[in-house]
């Protein structure tokens, strides 16, 4: 069985995989939702404005609670991360391949967080003081400190990737085995067993695991940026 993302077409020798197509779909959906949700605000919220305000408020509050009042401006980044990862992880429910089941997506996102950590760490503390932090507690530990920092994006991205791709593989194996099981009972043309039974597994691998790891990714980004800054 092949579990890697399929190449759909090529643009000038660059392969465009399922991952990229599904990312575009999510981008489109989120952009349209943001345009619809963000237009024509009124003083007294009604209907969809209430929903938008609840989401924005929740992300703002969580950011302030975790990172502190002075780092409130990270709420936009964290909100984007949360909404994108949530849509990406839940895409498996629609029968599409989640973009996060590709290490390129998760590594790109964790590289963004990595750059933010070091950029804002250096900006807040001053570059000299920040670089001196690598020599603590004593200068001999410099290579260890550098490896420790470099391990952060790897561990953050591999955890999300591993969990989502693990769920994906188990789900596709389960669907395959259910087809075999149906044909053993004599229902090969009409695999009735595929209905209902995968529900429990979708509930765990897609909904529970997906939402949990979205949240953990966002939370760890917040925590490590605020550790670097104060």
């Amino acid at each position: 069985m092949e579990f890697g993302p399929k190449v759909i077409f090529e643009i000038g020798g660059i392969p465009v995989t399922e991952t990229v197509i599904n990312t575009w779909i999510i981008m489109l959906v989120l952009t349209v939702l943001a345009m619809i949700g963000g237009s024509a605000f009124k003083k007294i919220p009604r209907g969809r404005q209430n929903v938008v305000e609840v989401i924005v408020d929740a992300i703002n509050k969580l950011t302030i609670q975790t990172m502190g009042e002075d780092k409130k401006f990270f709420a936009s980044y964290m909100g984007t991360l949360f909404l994108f990862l949530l849509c990406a992880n839940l895409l498996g429910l629609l029968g599409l391949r989640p973009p996060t089941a590709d290490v390129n997506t998760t590594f790109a996102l964790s590289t963004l967080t990595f750059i933010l950590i070091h950029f804002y760490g250096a900006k807040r503390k001053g570059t000299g003081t920040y670089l001196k932090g690598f020599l603590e507690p004593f200068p001999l530990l410099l290579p260890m400190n550098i490896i420790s920092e470099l391990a952060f994006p790897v561990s953050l991205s591999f955890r999300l990737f591993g969990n989502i791709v693990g769920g994906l593989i188990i789900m596709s194996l389960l669907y395959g085995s259910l087809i075999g099981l149906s044909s053993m009972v004599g229902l090969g043309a009409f695999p009735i067993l595929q209905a209902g039974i995968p529900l429990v597994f979708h509930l765990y691998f897609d909904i529970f695991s997906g939402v949990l790891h979205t949240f953990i990714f966002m939370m760890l980004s917040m925590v490590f940026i605020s550790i670097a800054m104060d």
Partner: protein
Amino acid sequence: MPTGRRKGNVLENLALISYIGISMIIPIIGGVYIGRWLDSRLNTQPIFLFVFIVTGVIVAFMNLFKVATKDIEKGKRK
């Protein structure tokens, strides 16, 4: 605290707990791979492998220490 950041936030600490495991395993595995690659390049089996495994283990415990003492250090400074 002046920053308004609450200590002992449950969700924050749960996320950090789940991070401890993988943050300890990644430097060790990374060390093994870097060491093996350097050894095969320089034909010095198994010196670099051992050096990088030991480095990886030290880094793993440093990561653990950093996560575990995150709030303690802050309390001391203020």
